[in-house]
């Protein structure tokens, strides 16, 4: 109960800060829109090939915009020693990780709900029949990505180099990205669950492992 309360309080704080600063959400949104536009200019391929690679393109955009947002989440806590304050207020360190991941997930999901339809419109791809499965797979993929990313961003922010997060994060994410892209490609083609069910299983395993293990290890990263 206390855990839920703390997470809720942290979420409220993050949202309040974001609505005052208007930094993460807007920059992520415009960056991803820019990438969509750039892809439209640079990729001169016919519709069949585009259709085959569509979810791959979406995920390239998600990865780069996601890293942009995740990198900010802990950096903003460094000014005025906010991080110390949070640690003292919350106490349990894994709560910080969970709530930070939750707020990152919320921001990235907001961006995704805007960008995914734009993607479909600009590339003139037909909306999949099984839209729920498509969105579910993408959301589950985002959970794993955001959780691991948030955790690793704690490792990399202390280096004062934001470039390190993608270098550390992307190799680890490869199975997840592979699974999400393959599954959503098959869903886009309207194929049945039997053909992409195992990919969903892989996504779930990845999500589970990379939620549990970071929570167990996060205590080692906290320094007050």
């Amino acid at each position, binding site marked *: 109960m206390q855990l839920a309360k703390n997470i809720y309080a942290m979420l409220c704080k993050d949202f309040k800060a974001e609505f005052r600063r208007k930094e993460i959400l807007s920059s992520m949104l415009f960056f991803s829109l820019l990438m969509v536009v750039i892809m439209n200019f640079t990729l001169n391929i016919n519709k069949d090939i585009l259709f085959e690679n569509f979810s791959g393109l979406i995920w390239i955009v998600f990865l780069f915009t996601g890293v942009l947002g995740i990198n900010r989440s802990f950096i903003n806590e460094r000014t005025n020693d906010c991080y110390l304050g949070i640690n003292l207020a919350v106490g349990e360190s894994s709560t910080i990780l969970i709530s930070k991941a939750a707020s990152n997930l919320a921001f990235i999901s907001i961006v995704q709900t805007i960008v995914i339809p734009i993607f479909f419109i600009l590339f003139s791809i037909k909306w999949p029949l099984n839209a729920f499965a498509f969105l579910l797979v993408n959301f589950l993929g985002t959970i794993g990505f955001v959780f691991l990313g948030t955790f690793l961003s704690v490792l990399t922010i202390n280096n004062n180099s934001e470039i390190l997060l993608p270098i550390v994060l992307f190799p680890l994410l490869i199975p997840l990205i592979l699974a999400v892209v393959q599954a959503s490609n098959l869903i886009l083609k309207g194929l049945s669950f039997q053909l992409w069910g195992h990919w969903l299983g892989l996504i779930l*395993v990845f999500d589970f492992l990379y939620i549990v293990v970071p929570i167990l290890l996060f205590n080692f990263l906290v320094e007050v």
Partner: protein
Amino acid sequence: MGKKLGYALGIIALLTVIAANYLIFIWVPAEKVMGIVQKIFYFHVAAAWVGFLAFFIVFFSSIRYLLSFNDKWDWLSAASAEIGFVFMTIVLLTGSIWGRAFWGHWWTWDPRLTTSLILWFIYAAYLLLRSGITQQERKARYSAVLGIIGFIDVPIVWFSVRWWRTVHPNLMVEGGKMAISTKMTITLSLSVIAFTLLYAFLLPRVVKLYQLDNRIQKTKDIIRNL
């Protein structure tokens, strides 16, 4: 490790490497279909074994570090990652050369190849993370965490790529036929032993380097605070 023991290990490793080279280049016959190119296989497999072993040592000593906070384990995992990175590079290079000669192209997205490549990237990330952090204790903790997280990823990568490339024929099984001859098995075993001994010889040396580096840092801190 005692100095004498280290020297003895070095000499044994050197002799084994020479013996393995003799077996590879002179004693063992070349495979009929592939010809002389097949001999790179002895280096390739042995290096791959050491690369994966080194990564397991990183994982193991990372856990030990987080349990004990003893610097010794941090040096061990860092040294193992450094050597493992070199061996993984050898694996990728020799594999590409062999693939070019036998398959006709430098690279395929076979599970084994892809897993090795990802492992190589994780090693690189590990070493980059270490090089960026100046504070000793923090560096040890952070890289231990990454060492554990990275190791967990390897089996998932393996499964995902295998599912992705089910249509792809498993070329390594075809390649496995060449190990039928006993001469080849002996040669391969000896070269695996030689590479493992080389790793066992190098590891304490690199650990020692880390230890000395740590001592220099500590001395510097003392001088600065005078």
